[in-house]
C-alpha cells in the first residue's frame, strides 16, 4: 500500500472541491492509493463541517420554512445512515480480515462475512433513495444550483470518511 502524505486530507480539503469532478477524482485516488490509518479524526471533523456547511447553505438559500425543514431532515437522516455505514464498514473490515487470516476459513464463512455487511447496506438503499428524492424535491432548481458547492463538498467528505478506517 502506498503511504499517504500526512497532510493529504487537509490539503485536499483546502482545495475545496467545488466541482464534482474534484470529488470524483479524489475518489479515484483513494481507490488506487488505498488509505492510511491515522487520519480518522481529521476526516471526521471535516465531514462534520461539510454537513454543517450544507445545512447552513440550506438555511441561507431556502426561504420557505416547510421546504427547508424537509431538506434539513433528509440531510440529517442521510448523515445518520452514512455514519452508521462508516462504522459498520470498520467492523466489517476487521471481521473479514480475521476470517480471511484463518487458513481453515471456508467459502461459507468468507461469503457470510461479506454478505452480512452487504445485506445491511442493501437494507438502507430504499431509505437512501427516498432521502435523495425528498432532498431534491424540497429544493427548486435554482436552489440546487446554488447549493452545488456544498453538496459536492459533502460528497467529497463522505468519501474520505468512508475511506478512513
Amino acid at each position, binding site marked *: 500500500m502506498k503511504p499517504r502524505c500526512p497532510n493529504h486530507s487537509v490539503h485536499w480539503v483546502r482545495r475545496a472541491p467545488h466541482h464534482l469532478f474534484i470529488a470524483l477524482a479524489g475518489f479515484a485516488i483513494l481507490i488506487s492509493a488505498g488509505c492510511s490509518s491515522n487520519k480518522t479524526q481529521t476526516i471526521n471533523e471535516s465531514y462534520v463541517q461539510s454537513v454543517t456547511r450544507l445545512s447552513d447553505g440550506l438555511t441561507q438559500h431556502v426561504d420557505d420554512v416547510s421546504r427547508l425543514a424537509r431538506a434539513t431532515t433528509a440531510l440529517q437522516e442521510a448523515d445518520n445512515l452514512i455514519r452508521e455505514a462508516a462504522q459498520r464498514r470498520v467492523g466489517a473490515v476487521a471481521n473479514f480480515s480475521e476470517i480471511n487470516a484463518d487458513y481453515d476459513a471456508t467459502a461459507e464463512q468468507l461469503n457470510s462475512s461479506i454478505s452480512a455487511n452487504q445485506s445491511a447496506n442493501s437494507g438502507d438503499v430504499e431509505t437512501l433513495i427516498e432521502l435523495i428524492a425528498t432532498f431534491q424535491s424540497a429544493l427548486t432548481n435554482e436552489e440546487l444550483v446554488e447549493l452545488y458547492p456544498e453538496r459536492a463538498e459533502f460528497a467529497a467528505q*463522505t468519501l474520505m470518511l468512508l475511506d478512513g478506517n
Partner: protein
Amino acid sequence: MLIALLTVMLLGGGSYDLSTFIAEGQENIESAVEDPKRRRSALDILAAMEKSMASHSDETTALIERTQKAFSEEKVWSAGELDQLFAEARLLKADQAQRFIELRLELKEALTGEEWAAAFPSS
C-alpha cells in the same frame, strides 16, 4: 448528496484491505514455500488477485466517470435512475468479493497450513 450515498454502497459495501494481504504473501512466499512448483502456483494466484483488484478498480472508476457526466448542477435524479445506479454499484462490489474468495480458496489449496502461517505472519 447522490455521490456520497453511492459511496456508501461502493466503499461501505466491503472495500477490504486486500492489497496488504496480497503484498504480504508476495513478499513471503519465496521463503515460505520450498517446492518450486507450488511456490509458482501460489505466486500466480496472488498475481491474479492483484489483477482482479486492478480490473475492478477500473470498472469502479468507469462507473464514477459515467455518473459524473450525468451529475450536473441542475440534475434531479429519479428513483428509477438511483435504483439502477445503486444496483450496478452493488453488483460490482459483489463480483469483486466473489472473485477474491475464489482465488483465496485456490491459494489455500496450494499451500499447507504451515506455509500459510509463514506466508501471512501478520494475518
